[in-house]
């Protein structure tokens, strides 16, 4: 291998999954985001913290393609991208696990995992659902996430942790490169929080970049490599968790400490 190709290989390996430069967003007269730079590498878990109205959700929605930024560029795997609809970001490998999980209670776990991306089989002239294929694949995904979830159980009969597993399994279908999770531990029991944090570890093991939005300091320090603090639409800190402390992050969130 020549030096050049070696260097190219190294640079692709080190190439960030997501690179935001100078992202800004105005809603009329309201400045929701201003000059946000953010870089995330493969297998990196980044905690996104900030008070209500700090701009976390706006940032996540821009990355998810709900609306375009007013300023700045988004690079995904080295290429500049422009999203017009959520499907655009999804199709190139960005998945979002929503706070309310976006599950249909009346359907089975497997049906929810494959919702909108059903496996089908030709049955003579008809194209019908491949129930067995979907259940088998869903079971594989639940195993991979080490979640005890039966593919054919209804979501309404499931625990909070199992629901999270279903929502996360959905992101694994498409081999996403970046998964954003909005408050995944907000409404579940202590034991289930453990399960969800271990699900995030599973994603990391497989080289997936994760953005975790949470109000729970212990969760951020348990699973994240870096913590990013937003305040009043600006990024105030971006530090490895080893070099900061819950007290410092709290001070950054509230504004007691201006920046770090």
């Amino acid at each position, binding site marked *: 291998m020549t030096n050049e190709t070696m260097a190219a290989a190294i640079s692709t390996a080190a190439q960030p999954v997501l690179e935001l430069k100078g992202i800004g967003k105005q809603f009329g007269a309201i400045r929701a985001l201003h000059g946000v730079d953010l870089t995330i590498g493969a297998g990196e878990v980044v905690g996104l913290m900030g008070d209500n109205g700090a701009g976390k959700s706006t940032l996540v929605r821009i990355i998810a393609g709900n609306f375009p930024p007013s300023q700045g560029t988004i690079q995904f795997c080295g290429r500049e991208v422009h999203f017009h609809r*959520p*499907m655009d970001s*999804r199709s190139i490998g960005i998945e*979002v696990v*929503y706070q*309310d*999980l*976006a*599950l*249909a*209670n*009346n*359907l089975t776990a497997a*049906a929810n995992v494959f*919702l*909108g*991306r*059903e496996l*089908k089989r030709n049955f003579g002239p*008809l*194209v*019908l*659902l491949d*129930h067995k294929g979907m*259940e*088998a694949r869903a*079971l594989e995904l639940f*195993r991979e996430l080490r979640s*005890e*979830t*039966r*593919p*054919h*159980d*209804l979501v309404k*009969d499931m625990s909070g942790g*199992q629901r999270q597993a279903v929502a996360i399994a*959905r992101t694994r279908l498409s081999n996403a490169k970046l998964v954003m999770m909005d408050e995944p531990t907000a409404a579940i029991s202590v034991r289930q929080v453990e399960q969800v944090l271990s699900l995030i570890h599973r994603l990391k093991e497989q080289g997936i970049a994760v953005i975790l939005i949470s109000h729970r300091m212990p969760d951020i320090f348990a699973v994240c490599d870096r913590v990013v603090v937003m305040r009043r639409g600006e990024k105030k800190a971006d530090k490895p968790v080893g070099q900061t402390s819950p007290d410092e992050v709290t001070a950054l969130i509230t504004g007691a400490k201006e920046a770090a």
Partner: protein
Amino acid sequence: MSVPSETPVPSSEVTFTNVGAIRWWNRGVFASQTAYVTLALIALIILMSFASPYFLTEGNLQNVAKNFSFIAIATLGITFVIITGGIDLSVGSLMCFAAMITSMVMVTLSTPGAPLSSLFVHLAADGKTVVANVPGLILIVSVLAGLAVSVLVGLVNGICIAVIGLSPFVTTLGMLSIVRGLAYVISNGRGSFPGGPDADYFYALTSGDVYDVPAPFIYLIALALVMAVVLHHSAFGRHVFAIGGNEKAAELTGISVTRVKIEVYVIGAVAAGLQGIIISGWLGSAPANMATSYELNVIAAAVIGGANLAGGIGGPLGAIVGCVLLEVIRNGLVLAQVNSYWQQTLVGVIIIAAVLVDRIRARLL
């Protein structure tokens, strides 16, 4: 390094340490309101067969089969709408309107001298008898005209609800009135009658029998089977359930909610139109007040059979069971010589009881 190989296990046999399996009688169709109502129906049929010697006679059973088929096809259609969490109050009016359009088109095309009729009919040598150029063609065109009008009404309902975002109740309440009004306008309040050389085919196909089985019953069973496949084995059916379960989730997963919603209103409208055309064949006419307030019977049957007005639950079996139960009660009251005015009261009690039993079951588990 060796990777531990896992033998693939069918999902039904998976065992977990701390997540128990849900027993078969507590899931699927067994845990549904439909199952309880089916049991109640069987009990009622057994009771009836002891109470009246006429109940299980062939003539009476044919009668029952025919009568419930007259609302069951529309009930299948509205079940799609109800599963998405919507409602369609315009089905009764549409039954009348579609039937009226069908018989009017049939008569017009069969009248020599009327526009386009020369394509379909000519006069026989005696100068009086009207003969079809192609037997059956008028029937096909006129039924398609009735169904096309239904598609149009369904599209307007669907677009108002799914694209503009009006409430299904208000939109279809308005459509109930619009369509009924149009039926009065186009017939000048007199209704219309099937006629022409193809009228006999029309009667044979709508109120005839095949080996003593009423034709509407055969259509019903065929459509119910198609519906079962569509709901449970197609992506469209899955999306219908997903929208009823969590519309926002369906949207976020990339399902085209707008399109699916328009489609269910069109399905509901076409089923109602077809139902109206069949009823008019049995009546021998399409009077302007035909099927008035049938939307309430249709919704009642769907709800008794287990469709949930909140969305997410329902199916063809429930729709049919609901219709059969209503008809068996009506028939039973007649055979038992109970004052037939009690029927309506009893239907109301059953609607509430069916939903109540399901609520109690859900609370006990």
